[in-house]
């Protein structure tokens, strides 16, 4: 269970530049096994929120708790998938997937075995010895996902992982992610600026305001899991998307 309570965050100002408030009293609870999508306009502070959860940044005020314990830094209970995959360019795919395990001094054989199993799970069985630059964007992101899953985290933190992919690849990855989520029931916090993606993936959607971000609204997604066939034409899907669109469009432009 993740609790974000009264979180404020500001970028420190430098010299005569004033500090920039990024998060303004954000309150979010995420239940175990829930797939939460965080939706908001570009630059609103979604990534910052995720960095707080990852323990890469500390809130200026407020608390980030996981199962009641304050987050003080990165931990093996959380796996992160990055916007631009952040793979080690000089290492092959297997090494990249095993990275988190290597940090924990897991023996080589076990590392390799687990990494291979996860490559199977994300559909990259034959790619273990490739280097990241030899892979397409979608495959790179699959490696990033496998790397996060390899440490067997209870929570997956995903920062617009499919944002730079073409529509078809994106859809394929979304479907695989949902399949994995259904199988493993990890808690997922998924940041996106795509309304379609949020409704397609989430159990619940938190809509953030432009910067400084507040929780503007929370939506329950009234769709079953696995998603029913013909999802794109289901009234519940279409209507929620439309509602979210209207809310997003009516937001004032983010302050630059």
């Amino acid at each position: 269970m993740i609790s974000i309570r009264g979180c404020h965050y500001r970028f420190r100002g430098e010299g005569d530049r004033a500090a920039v408030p990024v998060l303004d009293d954000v309150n979010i609870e995420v239940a175990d096994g829930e797939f939460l999508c965080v939706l908001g306009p570009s630059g609103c502070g979604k990534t910052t929120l995720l960095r707080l959860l990852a323990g890469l940044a500390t809130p200026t005020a407020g608390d980030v708790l996981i199962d009641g314990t304050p987050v003080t830094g990165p931990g093996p209970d959380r796996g992160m998938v990055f916007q631009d995959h952040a793979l080690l360019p000089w290492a092959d795919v297997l090494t990249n997937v095993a990275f988190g395990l290597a940090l924990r001094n897991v023996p080589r054989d076990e590392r390799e075995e687990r990494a291979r199993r996860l490559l199977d799970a994300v559909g990259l069985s034959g790619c273990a010895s490739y280097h990241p630059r030899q892979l397409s964007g979608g495959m790179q992101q699959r490696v990033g996902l496998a790397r996060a899953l390899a440490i067997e985290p209870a929570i997956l933190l995903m920062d617009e992982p499919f944002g730079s992919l073409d529509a078809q690849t994106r859809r394929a990855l979304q479907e695989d992610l949902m399949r994995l989520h259904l199988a493993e029931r990890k808690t997922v916090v998924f940041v996106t600026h795509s309304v379609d993606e949020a409704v397609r993936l989430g159990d619940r959607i938190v809509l953030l305001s432009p910067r400084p971000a507040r929780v503007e609204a929370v939506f329950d997604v009234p769709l079953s899991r696995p998603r029913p066939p013909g999802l794109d034409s289901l009234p519940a899907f279409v209507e929620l998307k439309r509602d979210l669109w209207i809310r997003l469009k009516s937001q004032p432009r983010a302050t630059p």
Partner: protein
Amino acid sequence: MDTPEIAAQGHAVSRLAPLGVTLVLWEGLARLLAQPAFPPFSAVLSALVTLVAEGRIFGDLISSISALALGFGLAMAVGVTVGALMGAFPQVEEVLGPYLNAGLAAPALIYVPILFTLAGTSRWTQVFTVFLYSVFSIASYTVAGMHGTSRTVTEMARAFGATRRQTLLLVVWPGARPMLMSGLRIAMAMAVKGMINGEMLIASTGLGALVRVYGSRFEIDKVLAILLVIAIVALSSTSGLRLVERRALGDALQP
């Protein structure tokens, strides 16, 4: 589709073609001009054959190569260590950075007379000339390589719980190696220059000393013959480095 073998042959031909054209032009032009300062390639080649047959060149060759190996080995040890420390610790970089930049910009030839007063005509003068010609670029390429790690990758390492030590050893250092290796190749070329320059200025042995002797007698064919030998030394030392590179690039992380 070409078989790899045919492709490799084609590759070799296309690589050797410019050399052949150059040699033919050289020969033709030199014969046409008939200048003593510009001997034809055939004369240079026969001078080389004579030098080799007389056996004189081997002592100098060995003297030069050993100074090169020793000086470059030292430069590698010091340059990589200092560069890695500068890359890892901003405080170290702040202190040493200006000296590194000054050392890079300073013409290394200046050190030769100083070394001469310290070490005389002993081989250490040559060794340290080679060292000073190459150590600064090795260090600066090492620093640049370590700074080349992208922020997203170091942030990723942190998110996965890497300590600072782990980030340096498992992320930053391996990422710096390609840049380091090209730095070593460039530094090797400078080391060869240092070797010859130092020998030309003061040494009594070595290829550079031979160049000086023959140069002062205007035996240009022999000077150029030695230049050929120097070129061969330079080429083989860089390919030697490449060999070491392939061996050395084993991976700490590889599962």
